[in-house]
């Protein structure tokens, strides 16, 4: 049966370790060349947005074209600051994981504009359903660095009370949902939240993010179907950072049509955007948000970017892709590009950049010093383990209270942990 030569097509990345990086597969477009339609445009009339690439920052670091949102220099400096903070935070937490002081970490390096650009375009009442690489959203929406660190440390000030892996934050106050370790599950949640917003007659929208790899999950398709059927006020972002763990975006089906085109069959407009161009991410998000708020329904946005670091602290990317691949990525580094734009416009300098980087490094370090006071994995104070029985249900049932007592007895060195059939 399987003795003849296989005729199956197997997608293979352009470059593996030892090969020259090769991004010739990426369809690019010059900055400013993609038309900006009215937010009332019909999906069939704007299909070009899903195959083009909305870019605003050009090779000379100018902001050009119809999508240019004309953001004030002061606001762009703030954006730069958020991206740098995200990067400084990640750098420190990655080191801390390497020292064995937290169990796990995931960096967003290279993808900072995806979170910050979108966050700037949203309103406080809009609800975010992030993936695990959107830590920038939590920062932008008011979660303190020290609180994020305490989560990673599972310490006495941990918002998750020690129950979640590092980076799986949540922020009810900031309208950023709880992160799951399972992929794509947040996508239908965002659609449902948006449907509820419409049912309640409100103009809040929902926004979600997932990776190119996660588009293969059924939940991605469920979300698109519901969003299309009910014209839910939702923005669905695909963060195409080229790599799932070791598999490239072609393994998720990105070789023939862009991810932005996934919704066209359902009538959902798609926009393919330069995810490393903060202005472009901001502009397309604002367009999609206005459209959703005015009853125009969902938009699927593909943010084309690159995962500069490992998938997580559990993998070594040099085992599956060229070591220097990021340096060859044609859309560059989002931080560097915004910095160069501000410099080109006369609103920034290398000196200011260095000073800001130092300031943020110190800010992160100060937060780290404070966070440790609330405990680490190895040094107290520690959370009370008995709290693990809280929040399983709204009210803790008898059998869990009984287990809590038994656990306490065992931990204090006296008592029986078994169940002789009593509960």
């Amino acid at each position: 049966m399987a003795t003849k030569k296989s005729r199956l097509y197997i997608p293979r990345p352009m470059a593996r370790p030892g090969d020259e990086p090769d991004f010739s597969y990426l369809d690019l477009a010059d900055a400013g060349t993609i038309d900006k339609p009215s937010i009332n445009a019909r999906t069939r009339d704007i299909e070009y947005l899903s195959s083009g690439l909305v870019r605003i920052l050009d090779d000379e670091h100018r902001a050009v074209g119809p999508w240019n949102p004309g953001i004030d220099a002061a606001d762009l400096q703030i954006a730069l600051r958020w991206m740098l903070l995200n990067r400084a935070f990640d750098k420190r937490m990655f080191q801390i994981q390497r020292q064995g002081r937290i169990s796990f970490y995931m960096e967003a390096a290279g993808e900072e504009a995806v979170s910050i650009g979108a966050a700037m375009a949203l309103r406080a009442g809009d609800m975010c359903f992030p993936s695990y690489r959107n830590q920038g959203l939590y920062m932008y929406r008011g979660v303190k660095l020290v609180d994020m660190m305490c989560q990673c440390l599972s310490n006495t000030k941990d918002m998750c009370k020690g129950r979640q892996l590092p980076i799986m934050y949540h922020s009810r106050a900031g309208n950023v949902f709880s992160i799951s370790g399972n992929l794509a599950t947040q996508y239908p949640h965002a659609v449902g939240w948006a449907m509820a917003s419409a049912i309640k007659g409100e103009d809040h929208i929902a926004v979600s993010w997932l990776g190119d790899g996660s588009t293969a999950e059924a939940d991605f398709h469920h979300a698109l179907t519901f969003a299309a059927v009910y014209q839910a006020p939702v923005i669905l972002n695909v963060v195409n950072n080229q790599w799932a763990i070791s598999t490239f975006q072609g393994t998720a089906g990105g070789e023939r049509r862009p991810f932005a085109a996934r919704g066209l069959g359902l009538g959902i407009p798609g926009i393919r955007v330069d995810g490393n161009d903060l202005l472009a991410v901001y502009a397309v998000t604002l367009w999609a948000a206005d459209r959703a708020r005015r009853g125009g329904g969902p938009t699927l946005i593909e943010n084309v970017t690159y995962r500069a670091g490992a998938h997580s602290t559990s993998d070594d990317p040099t085992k599956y892709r060229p070591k220097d691949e990021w340096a060859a990525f044609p859309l560059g580094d989002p931080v560097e590009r915004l910095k160069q734009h501000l410099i080109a416009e006369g609103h920034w300098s290398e000196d200011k950049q260095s000073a800001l980087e130092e300031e943020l490094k110190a800010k992160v370090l100060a937060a780290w010093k404070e966070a440790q006071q609330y405990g680490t994995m190895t040094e107290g104070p520690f959370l009370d383990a008995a709290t693990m029985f809280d929040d399983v249900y709204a009210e803790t049932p008898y059998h869990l209270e009984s287990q809590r007592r038994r656990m306490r007895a065992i931990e204090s060195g006296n008592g029986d942990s078994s169940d002789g059939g009593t509960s």
Partner: protein
Amino acid sequence: MPQMNMIEAIRSALDIVMDQDPNVVILGEDVGYFGGVFRCTDGLQRKYGDHRVIDAPIAEGGIIGAAIGMGVNGLRPVAEIQFADYIYPGFDQIVSELARLRYRSCGEFFSPVTIRTPCGGGIRGGQTHSQSPEAIFAHVSGIKTVMPSNPYDAKGLLISAIETDDPVLFFEPKRIYNGPFDGDPEKPAVSWSAHPKGEVPDGYYTVPIGTAEVVREGSEMTIITYGTLVHVAVAAAEATGVDVEIVDVRSIAPLDTETLVASVNKTGRCMIAHEATRFGGYGAELAARIQKDCFWNLEAPIGRIAGWDTPYPHAFEWQYFPGKKRMVAGIRSLMEVE
């Protein structure tokens, strides 16, 4: 005899069946070029090509559904689900399709899929990398469910699993991939090289599905367990000085009732231990069997030790995990019953 850890033993089993049978294919997330996040398929794509060791899209339902179709068309697929915690998007395909295909088509169609998946806690994986969902699948008629506790059994059972025409869920306790674990996280890690079951023949052999094994003989009580907790039970038995007999279930379904019943009828006391949550757990099925078949020989109520009925908490992994302390206390208390 060669020494292997559990990862090497699993890889050896896969290598042997792939070499013998060109219809065996592997599919899963990161299993190909990368060799799997736990390295169980390392080198197999280089050896057998990317048409037989297939990197799959991140879609567990798709992986299992496609594996079913491949199996119907004459292949013998081994699907890897990267963590047991990620198996749920494939649940419908397993329960409604894989498990029932033979029955609903009166044997005209079947699909001999093996699903390998790492399970269990002990690696600081938090609630999405630590679960033990074997009871959920043991509850489904039409699939076999297996969980080895050592490299020798892992290889022999995996070859059996791939060769059987029935679908098999093959749970791999990830905490003991690299060495046996007695439940004390403070102690330095131990390798399989010092363990008799770390001796694994290079060549073909099988361990039949549906057989339990007495891993420690004793006369005063029986602990029925499987997976990581087999090693915890052995350490706890030694710590108490009680003459405990330990039975490694190995095959969750079908269950080797005979070996379990013979042991409890001999010792008169029975403790059941698993890492999964207790309520509605697999231990309840075991307890019901033992109660029915050993009732007149039981000198104490059957005890159960299990994970608490909460999600697996990241920071309290060792308070959650039914480790040595809990096992020792359980043994002592069961022996106190007059």
